[in-house]
């Protein structure tokens, strides 16, 4: 049975970055990365943007060249899924029956796209966007379709809508909440984004959920909404969130609620098992120490860095300012901080110029800023929020 001093489960942004950081920190022990996909680690954000639109080929979204992993003596155990963790023996077992031993385990398995649960959810022509295989399957069908329904008005749905609209497809986006990005931004930003999409011809059905999907010969034909109306569809894209991939940890006794709970060094409740990235539920000082689970590249990379430093015995704790970005058409949306719990917003700049910022306040304290087509405001906001936090601690 192979043994690795540090074994990483997950070859996405978090897992790959943990391995990269460990070698950058001159860690000399053995490192293995178990990845469910056959591909070497690649960037996920382009899957709804540049990769979907064809602007970037797969080789451009690889996180490192293929040779890098062998050069850095990082064992890449690709095409394997972990089915069981035996924490006392320090062993993980894959679903195909291979066992790997570990000194420390980093769980970076992310999550799976949440599936539709209504009638018709298993019809052909319904697509999710989580892995490159999803994007490839979608790309294969796109030439033959015209009318697309996007279910979900979060970042994935909006970015997919933008990419498809640019390809000339008819797009209708359905969102159950009253507005898009209801969980992430304030109404001002939601309405701005929606207006930009409408300008380019995307139609919206907001405040209404999906009842069922109707098929013909096993393939989607129309989407029926809960208000009794229906929309003809040649293809459906679903972006309704993810379910954290933590069942294996739960079965091994880790504390799992909304994802797996971790402390400031990203340790789970199981000894020698860390968790990072989309699956990690952690106390975040920028949410007033509320427990959050952040689905972002920044969170994945920064938690990976914390775990790497912890494992090479450098003092580290996860205290980076959260930030996020989304590109739709020529709109660049960048967010610094977490707006959870805001009670007031202030707009800076002129929305009609499509370049402005929105500050989120909790009482008289600035907690986050959304920057639309304003990178200067974004960098300034990151600095301000980071420094502001340091002041309150000292």
């Amino acid at each position: 049975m192979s043994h690795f001093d540090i074994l990483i489960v997950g070859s996405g942004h978090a897992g790959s970055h943990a391995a990269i950081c460990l070698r950058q920190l001159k860690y000399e022990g053995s490192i293995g990365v178990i990845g469910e996909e056959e591909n070497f680690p690649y960037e996920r954000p382009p899957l709804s943007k540049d990769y979907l639109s064809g602007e970037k080929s797969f080789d451009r979204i690889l996180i490192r060249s293929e040779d890098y992993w062998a050069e850095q003596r990082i064992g890449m155990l690709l095409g394997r899924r972990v089915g069981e963790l035996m924490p006392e023996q320090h062993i993980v077992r894959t679903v195909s029956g291979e066992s790997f031993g570990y000194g420390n385990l980093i769980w970076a398995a992310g999550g799976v796209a949440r599936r539709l649960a209504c009638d018709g959810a298993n019809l052909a022509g319904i697509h999710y966007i989580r892995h490159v295989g999803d994007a490839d399957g979608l790309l294969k069908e796109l030439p033959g379709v015209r009318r697309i329904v996007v279910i979900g008005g979060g970042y994935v749905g909006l970015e997919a809508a933008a990419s498809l609209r640019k390809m000339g497809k008819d797009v209708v986006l359905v969102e159950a909440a009253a507005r898009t990005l209801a969980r992430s931004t304030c109404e001002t930003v939601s309405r701005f984004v929606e207006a930009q999409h409408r300008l380019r011809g995307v139609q919206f059905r907001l405040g209404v959920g999906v009842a069922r999907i109707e098929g013909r010969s096993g393939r989607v034909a129309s989407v029926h909404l809960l208000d009794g109306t229906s929309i003809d569809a040649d293809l459906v894209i679903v972006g309704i969130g993810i379910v954290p991939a933590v069942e294996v940890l739960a079965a091994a006794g880790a504390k799992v609620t909304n994802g797996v709970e971790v402390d400031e060094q990203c340790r789970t409740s199981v000894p020698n098992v860390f968790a990072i990235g989309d699956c990690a539920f952690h106390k975040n000082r920028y949410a007033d120490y509320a427990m959050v689970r952040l689905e972002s590249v920044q969170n994945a990379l920064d938690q990976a860095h914390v775990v790497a430093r912890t494992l090479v015995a450098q003092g580290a704790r996860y205290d980076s300012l959260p930030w996020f970005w989304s590109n739709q058409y020529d709109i660049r949306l960048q967010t610094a901080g977490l707006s959870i719990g805001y009670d007031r917003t202030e707009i800076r700049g002129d929305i009609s110029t499509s370049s402005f910022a929105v500050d989120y306040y909790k009482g008289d304290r600035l907690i986050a800023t959304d920057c639309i087509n304003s990178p200067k405001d974004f960098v300034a906001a990151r600095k301000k929020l980071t420094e502001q936090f340091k002041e309150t601690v000292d």
Partner: protein
Amino acid sequence: MRPVITGLINRVPKAGANRNCKMAKITYIEHGGAEHVVDVPEGYSLMEGATKNSVPGIVAECMGGCACATCHIYVDPAWRGAVPNANDDEIAMLEYASDVQEGSRLSCQIKVTRSMDGMVVRMPASQG
């Protein structure tokens, strides 16, 4: 027992391996003097040429979004004429880079073309 490094479905050549696609040879010089000569495909940014080939000294936190200034480089004087001028966003972002000098650019904003074949760029002592 399966081999440690398994095959790929999306098998891609290492940048430089495919001689049919147009490349430019870029020399990245670390602050300490170490040189890395890389074949970068046309259309890639100078930042991508570095990060995809593990050239140290470029961080690229915002992954090319012109929103962080951690992909800062100095273009060698002999090559400054070969690169297009910075746009307003890049000029604004450069304010946040460390140790800005003549020739300072954000490497994510420069797309490689064949006319840059042989170009030399240097990395700063730190990325902010």
